[in-house]
């Protein structure tokens, strides 16, 4: 449990938010040309990092907007929050 600074609403309790998993997984540009291996990679394989990870979050019980977060999964410390479409901060 921690506080999240929603880029639209400000600081709120984590239980208002829904975690959306790993960020910056790009949807395949040519889905019809993808091999089964590539589909598996896109759909299922995750970095699942212990340490600094880029994630998507949704303010589900608030403004319902999506945004990105950089978080250390070993101690739940939030390093940065940025809006969808913005470039991820370099570490």
């Amino acid at each position, binding site marked *: 449990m921690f506080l999240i600074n929603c880029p639209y609403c400000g600081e709120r309790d984590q239980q208002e938010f829904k975690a959306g998993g790993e960020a910056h997984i790009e949807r395949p540009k040519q889905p019809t040309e993808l091999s*089964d291996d590539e589909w*598996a990679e896109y759909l*299922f*394989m995750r970095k699942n990092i*212990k340490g600094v990870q880029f994630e998507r979050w949704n303010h589900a019980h608030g403004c319902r907007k999506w945004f990105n977060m950089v978080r250390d*999964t*070993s101690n739940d410390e939030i390093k940065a929050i940025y809006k969808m479409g913005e470039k991820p901060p370099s570490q």
Partner: protein
Amino acid sequence: MKNKYSIFSLVKNAFNYHENWQRAWKDPMPKKVYDIVIVGGGGHGLATAYYLAKKHNINNIAVVEKGWIGGGNTGRNTTIIRSNYLWDASAGLYDHALKIWEGLSQELNYNVMFSQRGVMNLAHNLQDVRDLKRRTHANRLNGIDAVYLSTEEVKKFCPIINTSTDIRYPVLGGTLQRRAGTARHDAVAWGYARGADAMGVDIIQNCEVKGIKRNGDSVEGIETTKGFIKTKKVGVVAAGHSSVIANMAGLRLPLESKPLQALVSEPVKPIIDTVVMSNAVHAYVSQSDKGELVIGAGTDDYVSYTQKGSHQIVEGTLNAILELYPIFSRMRMLRQWGGIVDICPDASPILSKTSIKGLYFNCGWGTGGFKATPGSGDLFAHTIANDEPHKLNAAFNLNRFVSGDLVDEHGAAAVAH
């Protein structure tokens, strides 16, 4: 086994004020080379080493554990054992484990306190009723004991459940697997450790893996905090940290690691003599031999390795417990903790070879791996020894995420995820 536990050894040692018991396993430094190294000294890892030595006559094995054995999810779970899974592949896997549980204390000469007190799963809405009836039928077709109970039968089997029709999620029925139950989780790790050690397996504690050395597409050894260990076969049984080890080898797994919480109450006199699980409202409870209520809470929805978890998860579970068991309303909770569970997209485990020769993974047990400990060890040992899966774990390969042959057990998994 040189130091067999029995009534006679107990009497003999009583004469020496119990000061001469031998240690149950040694504390060796790692050798330079092993035939097989198992990464992770939890129940599954130790069982794997035990069956490799016992059934496949491979004795030059090390189990490396970053903390102490059984200190991860083996010592953190709610010890529920059952095999009432929906699909044939899962039924085969989990019932194989349950059959080994039934003779495990005798086999290990170590009391794992396996208690077949039954596990009841409750239905709280019409879809639950349909799903649980379907699962009961599927279980019986697979030779797994299962019965469907009406609300009255639920009440008769466990009288403290509130079966009133005016609660928020009334009990509409349930299933019962009588062969299911609980075991002493620490004893499972210790029993397997003692058995494996007696057959020559080196159990190396406080030894963290820092890297996996590859030569092209095959494994050459592992870097650890106690130096480099040369080996051609590495079996990774690292639960929540499986992805961390996989990343060292340049592999990606279909896993997300999340905190799962459990809690126990102050000890009280016997009040609940079975295990009751309820997926819909997310409450499951049993009573330990010490008298504590053992309560399983849920997972957080974000990736975290903190072994903590959020307060609202515990609060939600306790709300459900209080509605189902009003008798517990004045119980005080004694301890709460979290463990990191590695969750697969289909809520089924992975016991598999990988694209790297000599590297095997046993992971993805998610929220319910304890019940499978003996079967998982047995089948993973077979997979490593023969470089081929056993027919019981063939469906649980990594390739199912490519082929699409997923084993969707979200309905039968311990915790909805």
